[in-house]
């Protein structure tokens, strides 16, 4: 069986079919990119997977477990983390605290233990901090550790968001336009990080992206969407030259 699978996934807003019976499957350790023009339903698929939206019909499976009806918070607990297209960070907290929130799914202390700050809480905090430091090192965020998010430039926020997702120690990570708003150099860094996530951390990556050079550099496979429907699926080069995809982008 495949590692992650969407079966006949649909999301309708009234008459608008944002996602229309989409089927795809991912293998463990794969990098799959979803491409398509604006409004093709890419982000909607992400919101369906992270359970912010309820699908109109269809089912989702992760590690052979159905997750279609799980509440949003248990999606993260299962090991699926995500980033957002327009950055949803905790604006008034420091980078460090943002990343520590990412550790939330590994926190086990009870309310009373925390109010008394028992030794077990203290010990756990240090473990979490250690994990966070590993991510900080992985993504070169050392200079920003104690900075508050609201004062950070866009490019750094984007990386912090990726870092926060990595702090959950995900098995599957959903990246919503990781390179949007980044300059060429930052985009190059991002592509290396995405490849490293796969090779060093063994994370499966599902990504929505517009930047074709980034897509072809990192992806194992590509899905092209338009009007909520799958147009083509396969090797990056194959999909890019697929006549339907070309037509969708050129508006023919």
């Amino acid at each position, binding site marked *: 069986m495949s590692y992650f699978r969407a079966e006949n996934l649909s999301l309708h807003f009234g008459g608008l079919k944002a996602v229309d019976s989409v089927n795809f499957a991912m293998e463990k350790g794969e990098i799959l990119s979803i491409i398509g023009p604006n409004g093709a339903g890419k982000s909607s698929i992400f919101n369906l997977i992270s359970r912010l939206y309820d699908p109109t019909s269809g089912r989702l499976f992760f590690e052979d477990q159905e997750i279609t009806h799980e509440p949003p918070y248990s*999606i993260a607990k299962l090991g699926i983390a995500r980033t957002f297209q327009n950055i949803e960070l*905790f604006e008034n907290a420091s980078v460090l605290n943002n990343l520590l*929130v990412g550790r939330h799914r590994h926190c086990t202390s009870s309310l009373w233990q*925390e109010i008394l700050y028992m030794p077990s809480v203290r010990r756990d905090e240090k473990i979490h901090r250690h994990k966070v430091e590993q991510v900080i090192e992985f993504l070169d965020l050392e200079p920003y550790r104690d900075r508050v998010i609201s004062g950070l430039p866009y490019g750094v926020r984007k990386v912090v968001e990726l870092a926060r997702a990595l702090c959950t120690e995900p098995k599957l990570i959903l990246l919503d336009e990781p390179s949007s708003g980044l300059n060429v150099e930052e985009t190059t860094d991002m592509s290396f990080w995405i490849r490293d996530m796969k090779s060093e951390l063994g994370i499966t990556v599902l990504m929505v992206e517009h930047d074709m050079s980034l897509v072809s550099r990192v992806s194992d496979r590509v899905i092209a969407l338009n009007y909520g429907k799958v147009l083509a699926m396969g090797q990056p080069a194959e999909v890019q030259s697929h006549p339907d995809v070309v037509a969708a982008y050129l508006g023919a």
Partner: protein
Amino acid sequence: MKFLFKTDYEDDIRLFPHSGYLWTYGTLLVLIAAAPFVLSSYLISQLVFVSIYAIVGVALLILTGFTGQASLGHAAFLAIGAYTTAYLQQFGVPFPVYFLTAGLLTGIIGAIVGFPALRLHGIYLVIATISFALIVEEILARWESVTHGNEGLRVKTIQMLGTTVPRDSAGFYYLCMGVLIVVILGAINLLRSPTGRAFVAIRDSETAAKSMGINVSLYKVKSFAISAAITGLAGCLFAHKLTFISPEMFTLQLSIEFIMVILIGGAFSLHGAVLGAIFIVMVDPFLTFLKDDIPGAIANFSMLMGAGAERAAAIEKSTAAVASANGLKGAIYGFLIMAFILFEPLGLYGRWLKIKLFFQLFPLYKRATFKRQKIYVKSERNR
């Protein structure tokens, strides 16, 4: 400027980041302990009120400041704590038991209020909490078998360890300060642990909090319950301080005073709760001072400036009329709320931080460091 050289993860989570803090807070603790031997009984009594307001301030900070759930209903939680106290006393329940019961029961009611509040945001939540408080006020006035309605309830003096602790004794002062310190320590612990971070996460972005595995509903209810429980404890002390409680003491105005505590103190730090409480409680002595001393002083001043005795007497009379006008307290409150929001949005603690930074950076401080950024209205409806 002081540089901290961090060598261990412990450095970031300890209570006192460096020895300076220990000195400051140690001195403060000594001052609090010494106060009853130095200050007049009137000032000690004011300090008791400061501690009660500060406890509620901490409760509101947890809910409003850190979880981002506004509440204008905390007077109701205070009332529930106070009435639990008065009711249980009738059956000879000892102080520690009814004190904790007041907290626990209020906490449970807070959680029950929290559930409906889950679906509400911003202004709707404010209105819902106001409604809750108004309904509680009405219940207190009507449920006569328990609350004695508008006649109110007497609260007996605390009996603990075989001694009585009258409301104006040093013992009661120590009790209140002790509760305040314990509550603050508990709040600090909570805020530096996963639950505290989850609260902040919910405040800043519920969507992101959800996708990080935070059960938003659960934590909102937790925040409501904790905040209500702390307020319930304060209610118990409040009842003992006043020795008499009736429904009209727990009005919307009191809820607004509590919000003022964190607004004036600074809604981003626990320091704010204490500073704000001191400020709010000082309004009353300030009013007394206005009434008693200012008219005479102005009259004397106008005599000095060459006005005749008759004229000075007239001035004294008219200023006295303004100073003792009924609504003056309300006007001052209104003015303070507006003034702090407009000119000192970070509150007293924010001002203190700015002053500190000024001296740390001297002479490099720029006026623009804390300049307000221009913000434009963007619809909050789409959330």
